[in-house]
């Protein structure tokens, strides 16, 4: 296969109804190659989750892709018919959410749900599917998988549910797994376990992961590349190490300083002054200007240039003569 597994070009997503539409995702470009883990970070309202949902064709009511392309394995997903999309969704792209409880059927044992999925997508016999379920549950680090398969979702802890959800998502051997804030609702010790599990299965299965999170440290610990979003745009992207070592965009720099650290000393915490722009408000220049410590006169008026240095992209006027 040539080219990336997932390629998003100039994606715009608008919210609204009938006559009034406002863009909340405003021109996102993103690439995920086979077997790669790409992080999409941003704060609430940055458009990171909408971007992920648009790949799955699962945008909420009142939202639509207004322009741009989403290519998966060379197939255009924007405007794809529901039937074809469903097939793709179940087989080639898996997804896990923040709240696995709502994604699992409360009335069916979790193992049976995975069996059903296997029989639908892989047309396996019941016996083969049941054996595979035990393998899958073992893969995601569930002890006594054969017994756990008979449990109902509400009988499992939050961390367990997320593991089951992951087993379900990877049961059809997808090429891409989208993880949308998979650990946000979990305690830190459980979060560490789930992240460890994700890291291991992606290495074992060679699956590509699009990891959506607001937690910079989590992204830094498991991703290969990262895109940072602010107000519906990618402001910086690149390989994890250079990006976190030497962030180029002022937003990334300021945000990284805000992350509370155990060795951060005492006294006032660093903050970013002001508030993010209101959902969907239109700005001519860079949306971060009012909160930026190095903003210049042209920042608010003119859209900043995209500058790329050895694969590390920053969308900012800083340092431009």
């Amino acid at each position, binding site marked *: 296969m040539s080219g990336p597994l997932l390629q998003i070009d100039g994606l715009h997503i608008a919210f*609204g109804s*009938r*006559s009034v539409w*406002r863009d909340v995702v405003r021109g996102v470009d993103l690439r995920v190659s086979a077997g790669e883990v790409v992080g999409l970070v941003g704060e609430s309202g940055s458009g990171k989750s909408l971007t992920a949902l648009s790949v799955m064709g699962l945008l*909420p*009511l*009142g939202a639509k892709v207004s322009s741009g392309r989403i290519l998966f394995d060379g197939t255009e997903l924007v405007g794809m018919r529901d039937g074809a999309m469903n097939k793709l969704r179940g087989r080639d792209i898996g997804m896990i959410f923040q709240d696995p409880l709502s994604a699992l059927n409360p009335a069916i044992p979790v193992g049976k749900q995975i069996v059903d999925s296997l029989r639908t997508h892989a047309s396996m016999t019941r016996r083969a599917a049941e054996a595979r379920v035990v393998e899958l549950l073992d893969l995601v680090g569930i002890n006594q998988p054969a017994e756990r398969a008979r449990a109902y979702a509400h009988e499992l802890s939050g961390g367990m549910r997320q593991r089951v959800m992951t087993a379900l998502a990877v049961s059809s051997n997808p090429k891409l797994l989208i993880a949308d804030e998979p650990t946000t609702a979990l305690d830190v010790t459980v979060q560490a376990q789930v992240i460890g599990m994700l890291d291991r299965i992606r290495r074992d299965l060679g699956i590509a992961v699009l990891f959506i999170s607001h937690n910079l440290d989590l992204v830094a610990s498991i991703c290969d590349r990262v895109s940072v979003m602010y107000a519906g745009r990618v402001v910086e992207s690149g390989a994890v190490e250079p990006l976190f070592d030497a962030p180029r965009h002022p937003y990334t720099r300021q945000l990284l300083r805000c992350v509370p650290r155990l060795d951060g000393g005492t006294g006032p915490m660093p903050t970013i002054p002001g508030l993010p722009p209101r959902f969907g408000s239109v700005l001519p220049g860079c949306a971060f200007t009012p909160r930026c410590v190095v903003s210049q006169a042209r920042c608010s008026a003119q859209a900043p240039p995209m500058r790329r240095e050895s694969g590390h992209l920053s969308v900012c006027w800083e340092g431009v003569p």
Partner: protein
Amino acid sequence: MIRLHRLVNGFGGPAGFLGALIVIALLVMAVGAPWIAPRDPLLVDISNQLLEPGGQFPFGTDQSGRDVLSRVIWGTRASLSVSAIAVVIGMAGGVTLGLIAGFYRGGWIEQITVRFLEAISAIPILIWAIALVGIFGVGDMRVGPFVLANEAKLMILLGLLYIPTLARVTYTTALVQSQANFVLARRLQGTGGLRIMVSDVLPNCLSPVIVQATLLLAIGIIIEASVSFVGLGVQPPTPSWGNMLADARNYLMSGEWWISVFPGAAISLAVVGFNLLGDGLRDRLDPRHAAAVLAT
């Protein structure tokens, strides 16, 4: 154009808006009956018995020569007032009970109220209504110094029967709202229970109650019609849709369709109107729906 769009959305969409229009039309008829009705609904005219619709009598006349159109218009008044006053009584009782039971959760007040309401709700309202009206009879009833006309009795009975439904709706919401942090904050300020209930819990419980009340208005119309149809409700000669249908029973087979069709259609229209409005309001007041509107 945009204003009309907003107005329509205010009732949860075109269906809800249509419901609102029907309900408004019914209200206008009920209030304005003396001016809107072309004739006296009680005027008996033997020379004009059983006339087909047309000419002077757009809806025809009944067996006593009374104008069906005027009787349908006046009937709106009887049907709506029974239904509306019953809902008001039901809301007063049901909201109070539900609110108290939900706010003082875990106590004996909650236990007693909830069990009592469950017991009453086990039998459908229509059965209750017919049974109770049957027991108390159709005549005026003396309660101490007051004389209750049959209609008033029906309103009160129906209102009492509405209490469990409305109490349960209020209770479910009050249970959740009473646990909200803003209620805890008020308790930390040392504010009394009654005050918190009225100023913090009640306003946040009203949306589902209003939706339910609208749907009960439709049920009230059916019950009034049913009870009057069997002769236990609004008494002749006062016209109500129910007793008009009762009168029309004898003419169903003989071809005078207009005597039954018009009051019947009025009942259907009113029920559809209140149901559409109730469903529309439910969509409109649903928090998830509100969130979607906010996001735009």
